């Protein structure tokens, strides 16, 4: 049972310092928001995210997860914005009282592709960064230890919750719960699935907190690390460049009617 997003590969992308990977993802996301060209997110996804994912040998899971998350969102965005975008004039076609408009679809496209880029960039980091390395990097960068722990366990918690949800689903199906079929059937199956999942998670909170304290989690002393993080001058320089680039882009996008439109 894989209880982590992290995929262990011997790749150059994996070997980079976690903050370098985060800086790349951050710069990509900022660029998608600041550059006013409708295809910027698609271009960055195709020419940066995918090559990096190939470099890290994680392109399959990155693409699969990105599209699994984004596709349903994109469809709902297209429908809602396409039909109800405020102030839109250019009607593409009409279904009864509802008119699908070009401006709405364009907005949905830009928003959807931005989300796709952010999801892809985030997954590039999460799939290629050992959680303990991420926590260590955050602490070394000045983040409080409990905050770093919370971030890492939150990332770890998702696959764990998924595994638990699968278990509950199978248990409920074994007891005759109908989980497939019409929308009504699926919605009515949600409560018997969610209730034990949420209750179980809350029930464990106290014992988990005790277990952490039993292992000196709150000991007021300098922590050490079992894992060793490698960093280089080139990576530190690259991180600064990416951060400066992102800040400049944000400032420029506020004051200058930016770039291609």
């Amino acid at each position: 049972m894989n209880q982590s997003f992290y995929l262990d590969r011997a790749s150059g992308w994996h070997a980079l310092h976690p903050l370098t990977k985060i800086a790349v993802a951050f710069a990509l996301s900022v660029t998608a928001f600041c550059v006013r060209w409708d295809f910027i997110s698609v271009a960055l996804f195709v020419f940066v995210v995918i090559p990096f994912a190939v470099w890290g040998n994680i392109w399959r899971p990155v693409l699969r997860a990105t599209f699994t998350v984004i596709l349903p969102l994109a469809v709902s965005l297209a429908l809602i914005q396409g039909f109800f975008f405020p102030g839109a004039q250019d009607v593409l076609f009409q279904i009864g009282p509802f008119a699908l408009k070009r401006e709405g679809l364009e907005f949905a496209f830009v928003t959807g592709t931005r989300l796709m880029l952010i999801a892809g960039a985030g997954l590039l980091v999460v799939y290629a960064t050992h959680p303990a390395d991420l926590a260590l990097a955050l602490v070394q960068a000045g983040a409080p230890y409990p905050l770093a722990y919370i971030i890492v366990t939150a990332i770890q918690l998702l696959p764990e919750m998924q595994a638990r949800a699968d278990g509950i689903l199978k248990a409920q199906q074994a007891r005759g719960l109908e989980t497939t079929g019409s929308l009504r059937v699926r919605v009515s199956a949600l409560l018997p699935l969610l209730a034990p999942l949420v209750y179980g998670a809350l029930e464990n909170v106290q014992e988990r907190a005790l277990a952490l304290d039993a292992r000196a989690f709150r000991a007021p002393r300098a922590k050490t690390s079992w894992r060793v993080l490698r960093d280089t001058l080139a990576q530190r320089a690259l991180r600064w460049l990416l951060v400066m680039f992102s800040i400049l882009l944000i400032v420029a996008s506020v004051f200058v009617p930016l770039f291609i439109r």
Partner: protein
Amino acid sequence: MSSLAVEQLGFQYVQAKSDALRGITFEVPSSSITAIVGANGAGKSTLCYALAGFIPHFFKGNMRGAVRVNGMDSKQTPLAQLVTQVGLAFQNPFNQISGAKLTVSEEIAFGLENLGVPRAEMETRIARALELFGLEQVAHQSPYALSGGQQQRLALASIFVMEPPVMVLDEPTSQLDPQGTREVMAAIQTLAAQGRTIVLVEHKLEWIAELATRVLVLHHGELVAQGAPREILQCADEWGLNETRYARAARMARERGLVAKDVLLPQTLEQATNFFRV
């Protein structure tokens, strides 16, 4: 010399109507296995929390009396310092996994990292813990990929590695199958052989009879009996405990007049063999 001394301990949880513990006094000698038994709701887990300092530092309420760990008063000593003196392991091994580590070795290192142990020393301690608890083969596996018995051994190893002289184990086998139970009990024997002082809460009386040097019986929050396992477990059913299969068989034999009435009921296989030979 005693590692743990409990004097007139009482505790009432916030918003509880009655005391969870009342007037408990006992001492735990160094390098021994002391078992605590009692029916559900007898106060066993509360006593474990008090022994490990989680009462009063984690659970709030009205604490009376004192718990001394190697001479340190648990009320006056910060929890972070107490955990280096008393390790506490819980029933559910799954909940004891930190969730932030990907391999068994890293998981064992978690407590050492928090204590600021230098990496070179960590390596030595982790290697020893892996060997002692038979986890070398799974050192690079995910903690979540282990069996229940292995996960509980990992929980024990994660506490052991912090080198507390006393380890309090609150029903460490309650969620394990017989094989998992055997694995964990073997690990506990190893700990005791290493000189650790063990306080073990356990429902499986056959194991208590086998391992413990002393048994304490809790009943409705009070310490009602203490002594050697064979003597104390004679009246297991009086305190709502399930007697061992050896005691049950011997009791039936006694009721049918097959054996003398004044002989103590056996609690272990060895005692049963001798009992029925007579």
